């Protein structure tokens, strides 16, 4: 059997800030086309893990691979090139607040492709339609609700068609209905477009519809990883509480 390289691989990674360890010896792999969700309480290093994956932060120890690329060994130019293959949806959208929704989504296309203005307009219209914001392209980010900002963030992260998508807390600050809409979009990306997803959340029931595997982070350590069913029967109380909160 020929082994395929993982889409993402984290090898014994540690990270601390001002002497406080945030991640300690964390390792996991995400196969191509897989949806891996990192669960954990607030402040356990989940978002830091995502930022480490795309090189926004550097680990104190360990290695991080995107495909076959060890991102710490890449030159700045190559790191920027590799980042174009990984979409990142930030917790609050992180939209550029000086330009419209339409321009936010068009921004990566204008930067990294030779597409004409008309082609870009067409792609942006398609993305807006995909996230249900056809009528909101001319709005400024300040005029959007939290859920809309996240959906625009998702559209911008996906517009270059990256095979991998990192998602930071897709449901934070959202009502259950809006959160469900975001989860549905992520499920479509996984099931219809076969994207690799790494989703950071504390909402296990929400990601149930698309997560292949989950990993539980606590105090900077990966406690356990496995399928939803495996973790639901874990001997660790915290793991069970995070995976099946309704049974606790």
């Amino acid at each position, binding site marked *: 059997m020929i082994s395929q390289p993982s889409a993402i691989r984290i090898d014994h990674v540690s990270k601390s800030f001002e002497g406080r360890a945030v991640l300690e010896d964390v390792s996991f792999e995400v196969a191509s086309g897989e949806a891996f969700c990192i669960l954990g309480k607030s402040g356990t290093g989940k978002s830091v893990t995502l930022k480490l994956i795309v090189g*926004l932060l550097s680990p104190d120890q360990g290695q991080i691979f995107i495909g076959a690329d060890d991102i710490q060994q890449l030159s700045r130019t190559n790191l920027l090139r590799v980042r174009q293959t990984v979409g990142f949806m930030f917790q609050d959208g992180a939209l550029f607040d000086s330009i419209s929704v339409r321009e936010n989504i068009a921004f*990566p296309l204008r930067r990294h492709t030779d597409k004409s203005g008309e082609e870009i307009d067409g792609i942006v219209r398609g993305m807006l339609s995909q996230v249900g914001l056809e009528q909101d392209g001319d709005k400024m980010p300040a005029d959007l609700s939290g859920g809309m900002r996240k959906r625009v963030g998702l559209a911008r992260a996906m517009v270059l068609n990256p095979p991998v998508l990192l998602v930071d807390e897709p449901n934070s600050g959202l009502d259950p209905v809006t959160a469900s809409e975001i989860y549905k979009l992520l499920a479509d990306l996984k099931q219809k477009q076969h994207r690799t997803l790494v989703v950071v959340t504390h909402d296990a029931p929400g990601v149930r519809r698309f997560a292949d595997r989950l990993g539980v982070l606590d105090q900077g350590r990966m406690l356990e990883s496995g399928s939803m069913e495996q973790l639901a029967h874990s001997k660790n109380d915290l793991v069970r509480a995070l995976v099946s909160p309704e049974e606790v």
Partner: protein
Amino acid sequence: MRSRLVNLLEMTGDIGSFGYRVVRDIFHAPFEMEEIGRQIVEVGSRSVPLIAACGLAIGVVMSLHTRASMVRFGAKSMIPAVLTIAMFRELGPLVTGLLVSGRVGAGIGAELAGMRVTEQIDALESLGVDSFKYLVVTRVAACAVALPVLTILMDFMGSTGGLFAEMAVSHSSAQLYIHRAFASMVWSDYIPSTLKTTVFGLLIGTISCFLGYTASQGATGVGRASTRSVVVSSLVLIMIDIILVKLTVFWFPAQS
């Protein structure tokens, strides 16, 4: 006291290495010309009303003050020359630098700090864009280009203010005023002093970008970056001005 000194030295070193990175990156592709153009409009065009109004006011006020002194020595006819030389050599460049550090420095500091705390800078990086080049190098370059142009505007508006004041007070003709103002001017009265504002632009841009780009601590950090951008860049600008004036006097002794 000691920790304040250490912090000051640390910040000086950090700004120095940040500035070195700006100078290094400014000559390497991609050059982000479109964004530099947009920033020149932001820094330059939008400062024009402020610079023009201040220049005019300074010219009028300087003329009135100078007149009071010169009349005592029977040197009324020297007023246009004194005023114009003072404006071109020092007042124009320094006041333009301070005004831009207030208007633009605070804006850059707040804008970049806001982008940092709302993860917009991380978002740029995650989209494969070099945020340092796109946000910092472009703004510093725009400041360096815009400052000399704004200084020339300030100089001419100051001279115009002086002309209006003199015409109103002494009823002298505009032609005579302009002749007296520029007859004794030599190139070293305006070229070095205008060119030194490129250094002012580099300083204002670098310091403001540094404080904004490295901001933290949420909304407090944004406010702090904005205020410190104005305070630090104004202080540094004044201190560097002393050195640059001394160098000008040293290099152009005949005209000094």
